């Protein structure tokens, strides 16, 4: 069990409105990712759910119970911090078992549960070490162990992988996703890495300046962004956004086309330009094409396309994949 509902949640720090009017439902067992640019309020929203900050307005419900005024310990959630926040004076065993000790469980039961959690996370041989004697990846696993051992209603992760190197990050990403599915426990995961968001999430919540811009599955956000912000934020490399006369031609204030949805030819109709940079990644080639009246357009083609810097090319957007936006930046959907 672990359905988390936010109703009109607001948070002000002094006069600064950091979170405004957030409504959100996180279904039991779902993996929900908060993404958004730095400073948009992701951590704050997570901390409000955790109970580490008090809301200025609105309500938070967990499994239908209003927990708005309850302290963290009464909410039944556990959290994994970016800094790991392990207790430096306790062994790994003590760290993982601390929550159970606080809950007053008998010693032998704590020992059993700690060992089971450690086994799941390959930490058995480190149980008697202090955090400072562990590598970054091991510390992270201890922090996760501490979160899962209490069998909480939900996990809260605040950029748990951002202190790890790239290779380890991929491994841990997969490990966390697998663990969450195996335990079938609700998880809310904050990141500004959109690869993490796209690969881990059942549902992504895109935040911007304390507001929810859009909520949807990764593919919904990719295929049908509600507005310019989401269109620009989700997807890598970023969607090309074009205004002016070209957009008018499509009956929009702005049109967007993803780099992978542009067809590249040498001749014919389309946006004519010259390749200013070609990046050959092996599997893909990124072309940065200078198009007159439009600017620099990013194109992604598969394999080695045999195109190089200085070549003149014609770009044709795939009409089915073209996104149109009105003057306020909202998506125009064909009725």
């Amino acid at each position, binding site marked *: 069990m672990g359905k988390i509902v936010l109703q009109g949640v607001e948070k002000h720090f002094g006069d600064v409105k950091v979170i405004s009017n957030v409504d959100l439902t996180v279904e039991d067992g779902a993996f929900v990712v908060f993404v958004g640019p730095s400073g948009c309020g992701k951590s704050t929203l997570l901390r409000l759910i*955790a*109970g*580490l900050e008090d809301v200025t307005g609105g309500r938070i419900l967990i499994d239908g119970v209003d927990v708005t005024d309850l*302290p*963290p*310990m009464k909410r039944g*959630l*556990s*959290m994994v*911090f970016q*800094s790991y*926040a*392990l*207790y*430096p*004076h306790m062994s790994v065993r003590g760290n993982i078992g*601390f*929550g159970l000790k*606080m*809950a007053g469980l008998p010693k032998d039961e704590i020992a059993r549960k700690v060992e089971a959690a450690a086994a799941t996370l390959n930490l058995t041989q480190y149980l008697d070490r202090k955090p400072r004697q562990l590598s970054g990846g091991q510390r992270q696993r201890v922090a996760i162990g*501490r979160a899962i051992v*209490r069998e909480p209603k939900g996990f809260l992760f605040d950029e748990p992988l951002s202190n790890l190197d790239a290779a380890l990050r991929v491994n841990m990403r997969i490990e966390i996703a697998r663990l969450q599915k195996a335990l079938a426990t609700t998880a809310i995961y904050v990141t500004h890495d959109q690869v993490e968001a796209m690969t881990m999430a059942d549902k992504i919540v895109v935040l911007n300046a304390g507001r929810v811009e859009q909520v949807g599955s990764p593919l919904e956000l990719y295929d049908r962004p509600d507005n310019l912000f989401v269109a620009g934020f989700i997807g890598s490399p970023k969607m090309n956004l074009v205004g002016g006369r070209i957009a008018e031609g499509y009956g929009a204030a702005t049109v967007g086309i993803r780099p992978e949805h542009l067809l590249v030819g040498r001749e014919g109709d389309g946006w004519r330009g010259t390749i200013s940079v070609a990046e050959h990644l092996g599997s893909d080639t990124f072309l940065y094409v200078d198009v007159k009246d439009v600017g620099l357009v990013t194109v992604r083609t598969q394999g080695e396309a045999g195109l190089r810097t200085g070549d003149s090319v014609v770009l044709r957007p795939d009409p089915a994949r073209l996104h149109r936006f009105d003057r306020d930046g909202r998506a125009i959907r064909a009725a």
Partner: protein
Amino acid sequence: MARAISPQKKWTFTILAWIVALILFFPILWTILTAFKTEGDAILFPPAFLPPHWTLENFFEVQARSDYFRHFFNSVVISVGSTLIGLLVAVPAAWSMAFAPTKRTKDILMWMLSTKMMPAVGVLVPIYLIFKNLGLLDSLAGLTGILMLINLPIMVWMLYTYFREIPVDILEASRMDGAVLWKEIVYVLLPMAIPGIASTLLLNIILAWNEAFWTLNLSAANAAPLTAFIASYSSPEGLFWAKLSAASTLAIAPILVIGWFSQKQLVRGMTFGAVK
């Protein structure tokens, strides 16, 4: 700190440091040496550095005349008592200032410290009257209380600077783990702050041990600690240098020994958490 220092420079600094240390230590050394002199040798002019006739006479006389151990006991009760009670108040206070600050926290800290800038005599009369009316004059409870209060600002400041070095994430993690406030403080904050608490404790015991203004003014026969014991030797009948020195030596000996064994903690303490 791997900075290259030339051997000459190193020697210069070492010698300078020794000179400064000896100058600072000289009065204490002189007191100790005088304690072993006869009253006659103590007032010789020009003074004799080492006692011409070593004697333990002064110590016996001092003990016989004014019972060192009773005063010692009082000093221990007052300094340890006031420090422990002070910690009970200062730890939660420093916790709230370090981890739940408000707009006024900085002002409160400054205000607390500013009470130490006022000369103590300024409040002697009101405090004396309060003590008198509450029947606290010449009582261990009264002295413990007043020393706890006058050292409290320093305790709170020291603990505050130590606590601020502790990442708040770790305390928040304990809250998520279900620790109520006192468990958060006892199981998580205090173990992490042990070095800071130890130096706060030591420094305050020393401050309280040596405190002479309030202990002299608010005690008479019953609760008098070692400071009063020393003072009783600069009496109207005249100064007895050798006995005064013997009394002083006896009074500072315990704290000197404690200080010697806890130098490292003390240095950390007196730099107020600036040095990690």
